[in-house]
């Protein structure tokens, strides 16, 4: 559960604007995918499945989408789309899932993959959550704090009383796999009552800056 992953290491402790830049570049990289995969509110099935809510999805399971036998059996064998798995897949699709019907040859550059994953993340996380990026209370110093993952796991046990540890949304937003900066920003917005759910305000209000950093560091690593 606490696998550390190079791409995420890149994103970790990265201030918000760096994530925003990745998303922006990712949107351009995604043009290569767009003829077969749609994203956003009106996304439809094309040659490939829509990629909203991709992270946490079992491979080959988007309802009514067409898949190769290879992709379906990869899913049946337990392949779930995490950021880590998508990074491997995108590096060279045919070597990660042999006989996939995806004809795309891959993204050689790490940065391109990081960018497109960041872009796709924005279709996984509630966009309203990301809108908190302008929270006035969150400064560079807070964003640069290095969280203690083990402490984050302990504190996070309180979050998973309601939110699912497997990242699925079963009535409440997924909180796993978020970029560090997004998690920290949203928690501070609750702590400072710039976001208005009282349950979250109370939880965040009881946490110090170090503790929020610890939670962010832990949940970023949970896929």
């Amino acid at each position: 559960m606490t696998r550390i992953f190079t791409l995420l290491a890149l994103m970790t402790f990265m201030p918000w604007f760096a994530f925003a830049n990745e998303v922006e570049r990712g949107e351009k990289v995604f043009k290569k995918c767009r003829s077969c995969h749609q994203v956003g509110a009106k996304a439809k099935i094309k040659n490939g499945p829509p990629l909203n809510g991709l992270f946490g999805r079992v491979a080959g399971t988007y309802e009514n989408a067409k898949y190769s036998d290879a992709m379906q059996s990869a899913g049946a064998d337990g392949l779930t789309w995490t950021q880590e798995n998508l990074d491997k897949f995108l590096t060279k699709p045919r070597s990660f899932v042999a006989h996939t019907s995806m004809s795309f040859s891959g993204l050689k550059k790490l940065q391109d993959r990081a960018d497109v994953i960041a872009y796709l993340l924005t279709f996984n996380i509630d966009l309203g959550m990301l809108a908190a990026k302008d929270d006035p209370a969150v400064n560079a110093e807070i964003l640069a704090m290095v969280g203690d993952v083990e402490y984050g796991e302990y504190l996070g046990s309180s979050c998973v009383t309601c939110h699912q540890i497997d990242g699925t949304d079963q009535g409440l937003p997924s909180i796993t796999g978020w970029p560090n900066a997004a998690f920290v920003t949203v928690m501070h917005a609750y702590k400072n009552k710039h976001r208005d759910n009282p349950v979250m305000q109370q939880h965040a209000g009881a946490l110090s800056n170090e503790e929020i950093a610890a939670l962010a560091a832990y949940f970023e690593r949970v896929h």
Partner: protein
Amino acid sequence: MKLNRRLFIGSSVVAAASLSAPMVLGATGKPRVVIIGGGAGGATAARYIAKGSKGAIDVTLIEPTRTYYTCFFSNLYIGGFRDFSSIGHTYGKLAADYGINVVHDWAVGVDRDAKSVTLAGGGKLAYDRLIISPGIDFKEGAVEGWDLSSQNKMPHAYKAGSQTQLLKAQVDAMPAGGTFAMVAPPNPFRCPPGPYERVSMVAHQLKENNPTAKILIVDPKPKFSKQGLFEEGWNNHYAGMIERVGPDFGGDNVSVNPDEMTVTIDGEVNKVDVCNVIPAMKAGKIADIAGVTNDKGWAPVNAADMSSKMDANIHVLGDASQQGDMPKSGFSANSQAKVCANAVRGALTGSKVFPAKFANTCWSLINEDDGIKVGASYEATAEKIKKIEGFVSKTGENAETRKATYEESIGWYNGISADMFG
């Protein structure tokens, strides 16, 4: 703290048998944690200790029932918002995925000197740490005329399962224009908003199927949890249906007659069709047998690790514990279990122990899409679990907020179920 050599055994027959056969189960050479009760506190503690220690601790969970029906959301079943099977959970994953030794039996004795637990089936389990989370039992003689043998006529439905089904069946079978009575419990009791959420759910059910029926609450307490919110909701949705008799009108002077189906308030006899008696409560009996309860019937604990004030090798969680400011709720029991699991792992394997932090939120449903909530965060002080900051829904909130609150509670239910049972 002085520990006398005592044998806390349910019956002398069991004691004799166990002395002559000093068989100890689970001797693997690893530190052993035994947990009594597979509910909100016990199942969570078992899962977190097993998960965190990755096999370094031998974890045994003793729970008599194979399917645990949550009290939380049992009122929603009565109100027709859930089916019964949706509140039932089994222990398969705790055993298969977490390696927990799940023993379906009753714990009937605790020998604190030998550090072992006796099972009704006769076996004995040795422990290095014992965690007790048995929930509640009812105080004998709390409601005149009622005892456990009356529960088939006048159900408490305050332990979920067949009692909940019985109460719902009785409500659904009420004659047109009949009366549902509830004898509410005195403080402290499990789930402070529980009786009033139940009244709301019964009212919802009656309004749909039996709109001239009446609800009578006999309450020994002058006030209750989220009172303003409930009363506002009752006025909005069930005007004229619900009457509450508080202590100023004899709500604290009540007796019942299960054969006659009567409730007598301050000498005045009322004939009713359904009577839900929720008596005064105390810690589950095994806490008593273990000798960790006080004269009030609850088990006092240290806030930092939920250890008993009477025995450092025993921890008491959830409803049975007397810990300070937290309400007796499933959320609280789950929260306390995580603090306890962290401390027990630290004591037995040297893993890092982090400071105790607790939280609680209790959601209640008043009517379709009309949810309310109350919650707080807590810290451990030398004397007790102390409230830091809290919140409560407001009267006059709009329908959108109330609907979102209800939907949030469904997310919580799914979350805590996964957190307890894997």
